[in-house]
């Protein structure tokens, strides 16, 4: 029965002094994925000497790169309260278009790369238009697109891999000692961060994801924003497709199958909310690296790939429930 003599002014929820313990708690809660990543790296470094070596770290980076690039694109969509299930298939169809226009039509390589990027943008635009104007939920629109894009990849290639030329293969190579996929990941990450944080288009994505009607009534072009996020997601998928083709020196009809789930998981582990309005490129980056480190670590420790799937699933569930609990606390 405590009887506090003095009434607290009831303004805002952050009244009162914040103790150091609270600050630490807050930091842990807000940077859960990052701390999880650090702890995991420490554990792996102790568990096996093979983890903390230069080549292995570059290896993790290369493994993370394609998923991270897809996830950066996915971040635009999720921030705007949508979801893009088609990114894996779009990556595949874009890279197949690059290889096909080069090998069968004999277009110059620079032009095939542009064709690839336009392919990604085009598929994204279709999903976006269906979402914005036909009012198809993005889950459905991109589920359909996932199947269409994969199917077209198989049609174009007749189900067989098509080899790619030197300039495309550069995207999968190592230049000046640095793997190009990692460079691409950094470039695309910075690009995504700049778009989301500094451009009116990016800020509109947060607004539309936070409250579509309030955004519309504030003069934001909601339809344009909805189409744009999918176009960007498509372009990022095409870039990921280039990296994948570059590493394999060919476009594979089954490339990037299932990658959309890793991309979505990265974004969500990174703290974005599937209901929109929240999400950061830095978070997505940590999410993608975390997934890659787990895979890499389990590989080094000789854990079977079957068990790896179980672990990845649990990590996603844990990370997101942690985040949900944090939000609940914050809302208080």
């Amino acid at each position, binding site marked *: 029965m405590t009887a506090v003599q003095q009434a607290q002014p009831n303004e*805002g929820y952050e009244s009162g002094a914040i103790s150091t313990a609270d600050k630490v708690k807050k930091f842990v809660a807000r940077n859960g994925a990052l701390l999880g990543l650090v702890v995991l790296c420490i554990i792996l470094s102790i568990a096996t000497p093979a983890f903390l070596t230069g080549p292995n770290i570059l290896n993790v980076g290369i493994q993370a790169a394609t998923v991270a690039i897809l996830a950066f694109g996915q971040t635009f969509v999720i921030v705007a309260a949508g979801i893009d299930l088609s990114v894996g298939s779009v990556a595949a169809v874009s890279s197949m278009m690059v290889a096909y226009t080069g090998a069968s039509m004999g277009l110059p390589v620079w032009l095939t790369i542009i064709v690839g990027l336009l392919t990604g943008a085009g598929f994204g635009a279709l999903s976006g238009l269906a979402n914005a104007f036909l009012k198809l939920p993005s889950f459905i629109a991109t589920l359909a697109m996932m199947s269409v894009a994969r199917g077209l990849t198989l049609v174009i290639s007749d189900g067989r891999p098509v080899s790619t030329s030197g300039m495309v293969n550069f995207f999968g190579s190592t230049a000046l000692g640095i793997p190009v996929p990692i460079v691409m990941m950094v470039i695309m990450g910075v690009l995504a961060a700049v778009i989301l944080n500094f451009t009116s288009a990016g800020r509109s994505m947060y607004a539309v994801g936070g409250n579509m009607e309030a955004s519309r009534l504030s003069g934001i072009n909601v339809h344009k924003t909805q189409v744009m996020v999918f176009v960007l997601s498509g372009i990022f998928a095409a870039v990921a497709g280039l990296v994948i083709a570059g590493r394999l020196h060919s476009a594979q009809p089954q490339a990037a199958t299932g990658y959309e789930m890793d991309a979505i998981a990265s974004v969500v582990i990174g703290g974005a909310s599937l209901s929109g309005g929240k999400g950061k490129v830095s978070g997505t980056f940590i999410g993608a690296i975390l997934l890659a480190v787990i895979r890499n670590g389990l590989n080094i420790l000789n854990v079977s790939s079957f068990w790896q799937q179980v672990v990845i699933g649990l990590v996603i569930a844990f990370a997101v429930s942690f985040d949900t609990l944090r939000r609940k606390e914050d809302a208080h």
Partner: protein
Amino acid sequence: MTQLSLVGVSKIFGSSKVVDRVSVTVEPGKVHVLLGENGAGKSTVIKMMSGIYQPDGGRIEIDGKEVRIPNVDAARRFGIAVIHQELNMVPELSIMENLFLGALPTKGGFVDRATMKRKAREALTLIGLNEDVSTPMGALGVARQQMVEIAKALMQDASILILDEPTAALTRKECEQLFSIMADLKAKGVGMVFISHHLDEIARVGDVVTVLRDGQYVGTVPASTPEAELVKLMVGRSIENQYPRVAGKPSKVMLKVDGLTRGDEINSVSFEVRAGEVVGLAGLVGAGRTEVIRAIFGADPYDSGNVTVDGKPVPKASIARTIVAGVGLVPEDRRDQGLILDASVAENLGLATMIPTSRMGFVDRNGQRKREKETASKLRIRMASIDQRTGALSGGNQQKAVFGKWSMAKVKVLLLDEPTRGVDVGARVEIYELINEVTAKGGAVLMASSDLPEVLGMSDRVLVMSNGHISGEMPANEATQEKVMALAVSHMQEAATPEINENKGEH
């Protein structure tokens, strides 16, 4: 029958004492009104009564014996039921299924539909609701849904009924129905806790009033206490002038609407609003006030007619161009239409100006930030910081943020739709002061409101709408409630029962 007492209860969240030594006694057959502004602690008190929160101090007594109410189930066993503001119903299920939600009568593992139907009919008869029990809940209006909730509570033998703002979403006629049910329940000895923002309802249904302010117990007074006195207890100071309109001299025409028409909803509506003028738009619910305002703003299309702002025509159905022409809208539902609740105050303030002030697609972050801070302090938005989540602000301060958005955009014409809905008495006056500031600077204001005293008190000129038409116009000093109401029903001969809605409840 049961008597429920809270004796000096307190509730602490983190470091703030949300409820501080409050005492309330709910007597059988009496209606106990809880009165206070938003954030005064009413909801917390209710939650302690219903087992959702545990008091951190003081005690709860039932019939004089100290008890603990650890959860909602326990409260139900004590006969305490809450009718929440947001109804706990599954709209897709039928009335009877909702009545028995979570406790379906079964026979051999299967749902016993016959028993369910019979018991559901009995429950509805109890409150005089004549509905087929297999009707889906969603097909009923809010008022009827609420009656079903009350029936459900009574079916579970509730002897203490807590009604959390039950009239907020009801029309006047529906309110009367509710009040007559409450009178019946009183006669049966059910004790009730009643929360409402409508002061006039207190004397109508209440017996005693407990006033809370900032979590503190202010006092318990008879429900017959004059309204002005209640406001004083609630706000802690007397509000001399509820409607502090400072009229200026109207100058040039800022907004001209000419022959605006859309289907049956908007019928050849024409009027002007001059700089320095507040024009009130009165009318019944469904008369077309919101429709006209949204059409002017470009939020909805219209068939024919013209909108001119400061002498220049505005293209129809383009919000962005209407804003550029100098028009802003404070929509009727700020939570769904006015604000991004999860975004910061800064972000909401800058929402309408973010794109127009951007250069080559890049947001003017420093400039916006500076202007957002200036606006927040100019409008005296009370917040922990400009980066605070907007949803954490009080209703009045949220509404100020919506005003601030348009203040930043330097609009010449401000369209207001229910500007003080869900805003406390004290904060309401501050909103009115903002309206005065807009017109003092040469802005024009068009204000639609269901709150007739507000329309009469804050407008310089009143337009009355009826069935999509403008049925009359008068200067505010000649307008009376009777005159306005007569005009409001003038085009309604063919329409169904005229229903006067004076809702100003919150969401």
